């Protein structure tokens, strides 16, 4: 099973004091930064905890109060997008 972790040249911040989950991630030193809010931030914050795709899907489902099957496709697609942007790398 594919695992995910933050790419070595990435900086990221969880934004505090917002009603919805929010985070910003960027490759440094040149960027660009990617602002994440709501579901995209939940997926990012779940992915940075590590583990494989199932772990990430389960965390997102728990945060959303949904069954994993409901969110799985969207989560996996967004994880692929984060990998394509160089913000996450895959393991395993």
């Amino acid at each position, binding site marked *: 099973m594919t695992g995910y972790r933050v790419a070595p040249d990435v900086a990221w911040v969880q934004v505090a004091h917002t009603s919805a989950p929010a985070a910003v991630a960027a490759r*440094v030193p040149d960027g660009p930064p990617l602002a994440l809010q709501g579901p995209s931030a939940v997926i990012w914050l779940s992915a940075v905890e590590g583990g494989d795709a199932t772990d990430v899907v389960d965390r997102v489902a728990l945060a959303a109060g949904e069954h994993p099957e409901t969110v799985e496709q969207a989560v996996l697609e967004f994880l692929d997008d984060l990998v394509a942007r160089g913000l996450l790398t895959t393991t395993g």
Partner: protein
Amino acid sequence: MTAVPIDLQARIRLAHAAVQALAERHGIDLLHVKGPALDATLSRPDRPSSDADVLVRPAQVPAFTRHLREHGWRLVTDFASGSAFEHAANYHHDHWGYVDVHRVFPGIMLDPDEAFERLWSERGTTLIAHRPCPVPGLLDQALVLCLHAARSMGGVRAARDLEVAWHDGDDDRRRWIRERARELRAEVALAAALGELDQHPDDRTAALWRFYSEGGSRIDEWVARIKAAPTRRARIGIAVRGLGVNREFAAMELGHEPSRRELVGIFFGRFGTASRLLVGRVTGRRGRRT
């Protein structure tokens, strides 16, 4: 995914991380100071930052600023025009916002390279935007806060910084900060922060620190800067720059690029008696009555 504006405090953290990545790539030594670089025991949530601050090893400043420019950072304010201390240049990046590049800390009079080395030797590491960033040691951070408070003209924020860095500490911390200030030749600036400038009546920078710690008029500042200048040549330079003799205008009048001597002549010619009175105040002489 939704595009949203980037929170300012998050952006400042990313600026620290971006600058650190650049420094690592090019072998530059720098220390992250103030704002998110502060130790949790010295920081206050009600003191948001407006930019990222870094202190760069002085000998590496030209190389570092060149790398900044190569990576999209644009010079906003150079060292000479940034402040009376000429201690920092300000750069802006479309992604990361503003960074203040310090080559010295105002108040530290030790040779800048040596001062940096001493701070560097006591450095720690803190995570900013999940990236390890070198920072001054905890007590050096406290000293830097005190020195910063010394040039804040008695502002509320400065008083709070001083409270956290100095008054909330124990005697051991205060003793260490005093010793470190002596080592870095920052006793006068520390005295200004602590309201102890009267203990340094003969120091040429005391008037300047009194102005920066307590406030005053532009004339007070001008006189204090002249007193603080280390050489006669520097005093004349400050006198000319401070009262705004325009070099381009002088060149038009003279028909050639003015020499320093000519600029001084124009300066005194323009300001006449008022200038003599002010110079008398600087040197302790009274202006001659006419």
